[in-house]
């Protein structure tokens, strides 16, 4: 039981100025289930990717049988017996379950030149039965549920007979019943000679199945403890850290909350996205946080309010009047702005310059009989560039020439130019450097003085602690609780995010 399979030695990885992993030393023992926990951004994914050979560490190495190793690519990691089931597991939805299971290792390839997928069905059935799951091997993957697809992914990973299998947040997208089934399967793996690393946000799950638990925080390995020697509270404390937060804001947060309610959301559900019966209101000048882990339904909630997705049931009212919003155009016309989370995919026009990016949401304003009002565009852009201290202060610079933080400020300006009454910000400081982070937080704080209601979706709990007047905590498409004032604290939020 105590034989050491892999040893991570002093693993360090930097992305630009951010240190994702800082001298991490971690031991994996043979046939254990090793739980790995940490907040968003603690470095879990980076560590997994290094073990999986997707990225290389800047320093440090992995010790296997006393040989120093650095995986240059995923197949090297595979050769050393490591398999990873990633959170977003790439699979071929157009093929059958059996074909997916044997995608890389095909049991009939050597014996026959001709391809007959039917020959895969029997071995696939066997492989699935070994895991105790019952999925028809001839079913097409696109008609499988997420949980079934995940089983197929696990089955596929096991085909390579790995010594060590890593599960990256395997429970985030599946229902409670399915979670229990999955945990049973994972528990049975060490008996069959496979060592497991289980990565999750949810402490109950980690506690339920792990032999030992490692905690990452801000890229550092805080400790590895035996499961029976540590309580849930210990683990939360290790995740959060003792000194509550390193505050980024220089000014104190000033609250501008008025008593008037600007927006009220009642019984909002979205069946396809799994949003269930959400109720809350937003007051004038308020910053309302939305906390939760990835997949909790935060962006989905924002996008449903903004009219990108059609709501299944429920009402939204603005200033006491019920409104019907079917698309972003109508949302903007009613004074709602939405800064989406994925800057490159959903926000930027990389083919356009700064001013053209900035005015995208105010096309009615910059148009006079269909003609572009170039002077007006310049004026508006210059004003916002000055207000938000965007660098370089050049309206005609290519957007791609700006740093991530400044790009984000341009996108923020896009929504400020709309003069919104309600502004939804989805991870506004993700992927920007510390300086820009502080500036953006200051801007958000200042915004509310003019009476704008801000909904702030953030995975960075210090940001929520620092800025928000109230905070919604979401978990699996539901609103778990609303925290007010002093209740908005990291460990409190984590408790609601992670408990079931």
């Amino acid at each position: 039981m105590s034989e050491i399979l892999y040893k991570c030695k002093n693993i360090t990885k930097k992305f630009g100025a951010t240190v994702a992993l800082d001298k991490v030393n971690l031991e994996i023992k043979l046939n254990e289930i090793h739980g790995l926990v940490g907040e968003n951004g603690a470095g879990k994914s980076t560590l997994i990717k290094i073990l999986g050979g997707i990225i290389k560490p800047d320093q440090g190495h992995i010790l296997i049988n006393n040989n120093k190793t650095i995986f240059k690519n995923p197949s090297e990691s595979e050769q050393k017996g490591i398999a990873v089931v990633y959170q977003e597991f790439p699979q071929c939805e157009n093929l059958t379950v059996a074909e997916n299971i044997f995608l890389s290792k095909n049991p009939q390839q050597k014996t026959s030149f001709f391809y007959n997928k039917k020959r895969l069905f029997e071995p696939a059935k066997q492989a699935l039965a070994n895991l105790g799951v019952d999925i028809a091997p001839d079913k097409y993957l696109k008609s499988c549920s997420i949980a079934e697809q995940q089983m197929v992914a696990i089955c596929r990973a096991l085909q390579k007979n790995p010594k060590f299998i890593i599960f990256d947040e395997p429970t985030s997208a599946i229902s409670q019943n399915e979670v229990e089934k999955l945990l049973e399967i994972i528990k049975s793996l060490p008996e069959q000679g496979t060592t497991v690393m289980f990565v999750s946000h949810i402490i109950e799950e980690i506690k339920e199945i792990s032999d030992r638990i490692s905690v990452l925080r801000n890229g550092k390995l805080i400790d590895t403890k035996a499961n029976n020697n540590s309580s849930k509270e210990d683990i939360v404390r290790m995740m959060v850290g003792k000194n509550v937060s390193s505050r980024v804001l220089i000014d104190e947060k000033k609250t501008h909350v008025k008593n008037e309610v600007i927006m009220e959301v009642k019984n909002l559900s979205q069946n396809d996205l799994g949003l269930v019966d959400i109720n809350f209101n937003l007051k004038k000048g308020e910053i309302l946080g939305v906390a939760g882990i990835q997949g909790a339904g935060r962006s989905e909630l924002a996008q449903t309010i903004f009219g990108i997705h059609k709501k299944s049931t429920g009402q939204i009212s603005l200033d006491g009047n019920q409104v019907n919003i079917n698309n972003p155009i109508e949302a903007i016309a009613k004074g709602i702005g939405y800064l989406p989370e994925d800057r490159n995919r959903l926000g930027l026009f990389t083919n356009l310059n700064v001013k053209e990016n900035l005015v995208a949401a105010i096309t009615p304003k910059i148009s006079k009989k269909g003609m572009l009002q170039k002077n007006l565009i310049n004026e508006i852009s210059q004003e916002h560039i000055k207000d938000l201290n965007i660098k370089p202060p050049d309206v005609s610079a290519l957007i791609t020439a700006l740093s991530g933080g400044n790009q984000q400020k341009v996108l923020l300006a896009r929504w400020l130019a709309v003069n919104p009454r309600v502004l939804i910000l989805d991870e506004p400081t993700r992927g920007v450097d510390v300086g820009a982070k502080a500036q953006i937080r200051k801007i958000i704080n200042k915004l509310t003085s003019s009476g704008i209601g801000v909904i702030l979706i953030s995975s960075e709990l210090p940001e929520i602690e620092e800025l928000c007047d109230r905070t919604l905590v979401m978990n699996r498409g539901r609103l778990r609780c609303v925290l007010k004032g002093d209740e908005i604290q990291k460990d409190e939020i984590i408790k609601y995010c992670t408990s079931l």
Partner: protein
Amino acid sequence: MMSGNKNNFNIKELAKLLLSKREAGVFIAFIIISVFFIIQSPAFLTSRNLLNVMRQTSQLGIVVAFVTILIISSEFDLSVGAVFAFSGVFMGFITTELGLTPWVALPLSILVCSLFGLVNGTISVYLKVPSFITTLGTSMVIRGLALYVSGGRPVSGNITETFYLITGGRLWNFISSPILWFLGAMILGGFILQKTVFGYMVFATGGNEKAAHFAGIPTKKIKIIAFVLTAAAAALSGGIALSYLGSATPTQGTGMELDAIAATVIGGTALMGGSGSMLGAFLGVLIMAIVRNGLVLLGAGPFMQDLLIGIIIVFAVIINVQLLQRSE
């Protein structure tokens, strides 16, 4: 001494500025090809030859102006050749059989063909069929209609004298009217792209459709309008061809759609949408035209022509892509 240095510096800066423009690649290709033909054939650089080249390519050019807008919005139209043929046949039919004046027939034809554009757009945008496939199908339908209406035979048009003068003939005994329509279409297309809100939305939609949708830009409407404009341009072009030639065949314009895409892409428009320019498209059309013309002047046989044009297209696009990548 000082001023010499300064001049040097300025030239360098100027060259840098020119190279940073997105039309730089196609411009360089245009110059190289032109110089080659000027040296090789004395007949090339004569006003008569050049005007001739322009006239020959004007039908394609009118279409390219709007195909460029459509491609920037990240859609394709493979039915422009068929619409071009349909428009000619339709106009011929209604002017001779129904006795309509061409002044009515041309707008009517543009209107009918705009409906084809609307169908192309609606199927591609709302029913989410890739426009490559949609327009491949509708091109057969539209050409089929042209064949059906004409019985497969050429249709002559009943064209009045003034109409001929303005759309197909020569003005002031010097310049062919189709050239003016070609230039007009290019200027209009450039104006739409650069000066109108619609043009801005075309760039935004083609550059990042999701982001545009999230910013409240009516991306579907924009694309459909681009389809309608393209079909209308092909119809206009078909009318002008009918006026110039006096008749239309239902098989005319075969391959025009690919020439139009080639010219647009040679001109530096991104095949995936989001960027491009009318000046580049204009130069792209001219390159295709002078290569054809130059090869004829050099006595290359018709089979050799296609081969060489193909090679030149590939090289022009390579230069362009390389320069664009460097500037990014």
